[in-house]
């Protein structure tokens, strides 16, 4: 097991190198030049553009730029954002906690809603409860995030203007209260697909022989579901949750924007639009690394959920 983890962690390095290289060349191919953007905003003249490109190291041949980038990366230096004038590591440090917070909050809500409705639907197969749960799931999948967010915001500000009660802060961030709305919006959207997956894999296991045996032993419904059915059904569900969580760690542009939150999603989008190469690099590397780590945790958790799975 330990050796397996070691090997996976070592594999991270070539993976990250691949990601960094791809991003480097993709960004290079994007049209535009940061020096021109800076000068267009300052009324610069043609001769200044060349000078600024030189200062930013953008006039070097591509291989030189690439080698310099790799060299800095190996030393753990992500460089400085061209437009924000801050070390990329500092910008990540400012935004990552906010994205992690939202990812954890959103995932918790998604699991809460997704697991419970999924199980409820599976246990009441073909009944009205099943249908109600699945309608909810479809709503979660198909309702756009920003629309749900706006609905909540209107409802809450309506309450506060009409009755003078403010249940939750609408925008911004800070304490747990600020997290509730964005987490619910995000979680609800994710819970839909999760609920459907839980339901179908629960249904599959509920008809398997070991469940029939358990029933024959005279075990109660609760014990059967938690100890025998759910455990088996959890494997595909965990995979999916891992993927979702990894994606969330990279930031969620829409929810961050609607609720005026800091976060990686907005940071990356702005950085791409302005062609802020070092910042895009840093943010993408963080996202890739967190994806890899989350997947590793998911793989390890398989062994915990199902003792038959072993890594040698």
């Amino acid at each position: 097991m330990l050796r397996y983890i070691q090997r996976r962690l070592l594999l991270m390095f070539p993976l990250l190198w691949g990601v960094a290289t791809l991003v480097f060349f993709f960004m290079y191919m994007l049209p535009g030049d940061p020096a021109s953007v800076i000068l267009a905003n300052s009324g610069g003249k043609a001769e200044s553009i060349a000078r600024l490109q030189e200062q930013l190291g953008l006039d070097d041949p591509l291989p030189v730029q690439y080698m310099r980038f790799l060299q800095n990366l190996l030393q753990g230096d992500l460089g400085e954002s061209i437009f924000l004038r801050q070390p990329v590591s500092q910008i990540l440090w400012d935004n990552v906690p906010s994205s992690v917070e939202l990812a954890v909050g959103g995932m918790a809500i998604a699991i809460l809603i997704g697991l419970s409705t999924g199980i409820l639907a599976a246990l009441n197969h073909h009944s009205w409860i099943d249908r109600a749960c699945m309608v909810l799931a479809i709503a979660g999948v198909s309702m756009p995030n920003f629309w749900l967010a706006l609905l909540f915001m209107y409802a809450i500000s309506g309450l506060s203007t009409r009755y003078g009660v403010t249940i939750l802060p609408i925008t911004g961030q800070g304490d747990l209260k600020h997290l509730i709305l964005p987490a619910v919006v995000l979680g609800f959207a994710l819970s839909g697909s999760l609920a459907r997956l839980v339901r179908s894999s629960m249904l599959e296991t509920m008809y398997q022989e070991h469940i029939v045996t358990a029933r024959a032993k005279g075990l109660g419904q609760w014990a059967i579901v938690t100890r025998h059915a759910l455990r088996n059904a959890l494997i595909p569900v965990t995979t999916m949750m891992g993927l979702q969580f990894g994606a969330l760690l990279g930031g969620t542009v829409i929810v961050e924007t609607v609720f005026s939150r800091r976060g990686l999603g907005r940071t990356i989008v702005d950085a791409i639009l302005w062609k802020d190469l070092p910042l895009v690099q840093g943010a993408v590397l963080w996202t890739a690394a967190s994806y890899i780590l989350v997947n590793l945790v998911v793989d390890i958790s398989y062994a915990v959920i199902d003792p038959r799975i072993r890594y040698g």
Partner: protein
Amino acid sequence: MNRHSVLALVSISILFVSSLAGCAKPEPQVAGTTVVKEQVSPETAVTAAAGRQGGEITYGLTLIVSDIDPHTGSSSELGIFLTSVYDPLVWRDQEGNYYPGLAKSWEISEDGRVYTFYLRDDVKFHDGEPFNAEAVKANLDRIVDPELQSHKAVYMMGPYDRTEIVDAYTVQVHFEEPYAPFLDSASQVYLAMASPKALEEWGAEHYREHQAGTGPFAIQEYVPKDHIVLVKNPDYNWAPAFMGHQGPAYLDKITFRFYPDAATRVPALESGEAQIMGEIPPLEAKRLASDSRFVIYPTHIPGQSLQVFINTSRAPTNNLQVRQALIYGCDRQAIVNGIFGGFSPVAHGPLGRKTPFYNPAVEGMYSYDPEKARNLLAEAGWTDTNGDGVLDKDGQDFVLDTVLMGWGAMPEVGTAMQGLYRQLGIKMEAQILAYPAALEAARNNAHHLIPMALSSSDPDILSSYFHSRNIESGFSWSRYPDAGLDQWLDKGTRTNDMEKRSELYDQAQQRIMEQALIVPIRDYVNLNGDNAKVKGLRYGLQGWFPWLYDVYLKD
């Protein structure tokens, strides 16, 4: 003055302020002339009116500024709070006249290459350091240091060569070539005079978090992306003569907070969370303007009006009649009313009407006249022969490639123009690109039309956008090489004779409009609002930056 000196002191006049604070209306210097005035001496200065001292306000900012070092940052937002933290060497009043600032007086050499500043000797930085010639040198040298990678200030320094310390309170700033815009640069917050000790101590990377200027307010706290707190500088006694009072500022404390989402700005002002708010959306401004509890300040931003460059190097816009038709056929008043809530005046030329050296002669040149536009297009040979609603000539449809950036209401303006031009039978194909991609497209000559707007208080900005040497890699998007225009713009950069300069820029503006190089759309007007209890708020020449020194609260 030594008569053998190459320096020519034009004249000195001494100003006595005798009237009361608030009504003091000192005789200003004529725009741009090098008439020099003595700063008001502390003895003659009127003391602050009683009952105005004290209190604190919150000022709402828009964009979250990350680089707040005045020497490196390029945003307009940074100046909104730093204008109160720093003093410039020279001040400009709202009309653009020059006044003594940290320099009591100044002179410009006959060849326009040496600026001599005679400095005040009674000024202290917020950290207690004295202001002197060494401080000026340290600041100017810092700005041009390639290591600093300034995004704006360095470009305002032009062909800067070096600063020489003549004595403790006299400096000479030398340029490699005559550089007339420097006095305007020296009046701006980007060339702020910072404490050399703080610059030294914190270095390029951390000075922005530990700033020390000489202004009426000092930075007490800076929490990145959240707020900035300024507190009154009790020692301040060097306000420019055109302010309403002398001595320390009235307010004790000002907190600047960020409201990046336009929808949250007006509620913050209405609820009393903020007393002053920047960039209020036009429709909300209309509503607040009729509410007696609030005051709206439509503030002109000088510089380039919002204008759409017409590419003269590609057919069909290489034809003058076609370009003129594009101006006649654009109902700018409708665009201003529909998109900017009627607050902005229609632009008539490449410079906004509040820009120093604006030429009002451009105003009568083009009215909205779709009939004339049609005739001009027909004269140029464009008619709809196949009846598909689009003009054509030699089997080619009249199509204009238009590159739009996503900011500054450009997409909305582009859409409006699309509709107006469709009525003339012109097909305008617009694509909205990320800013770097839009600039790249224009550099690759892939456009017929591309919009731009940029604030500036010196007409030298025209060089960046119309001089032929900036066609290939700069921003001369009209791509119109004109020896006359180039010459006027070059001379304008080099001459300090204000009458001559005025003549040169008059000619340049006229030529730009005669040749129909742009469709001018609107003058930039920024809508700021405040609570009616806030008194004394004024905005400087650049339009973005408030003078909070005179502001007080009326209860």
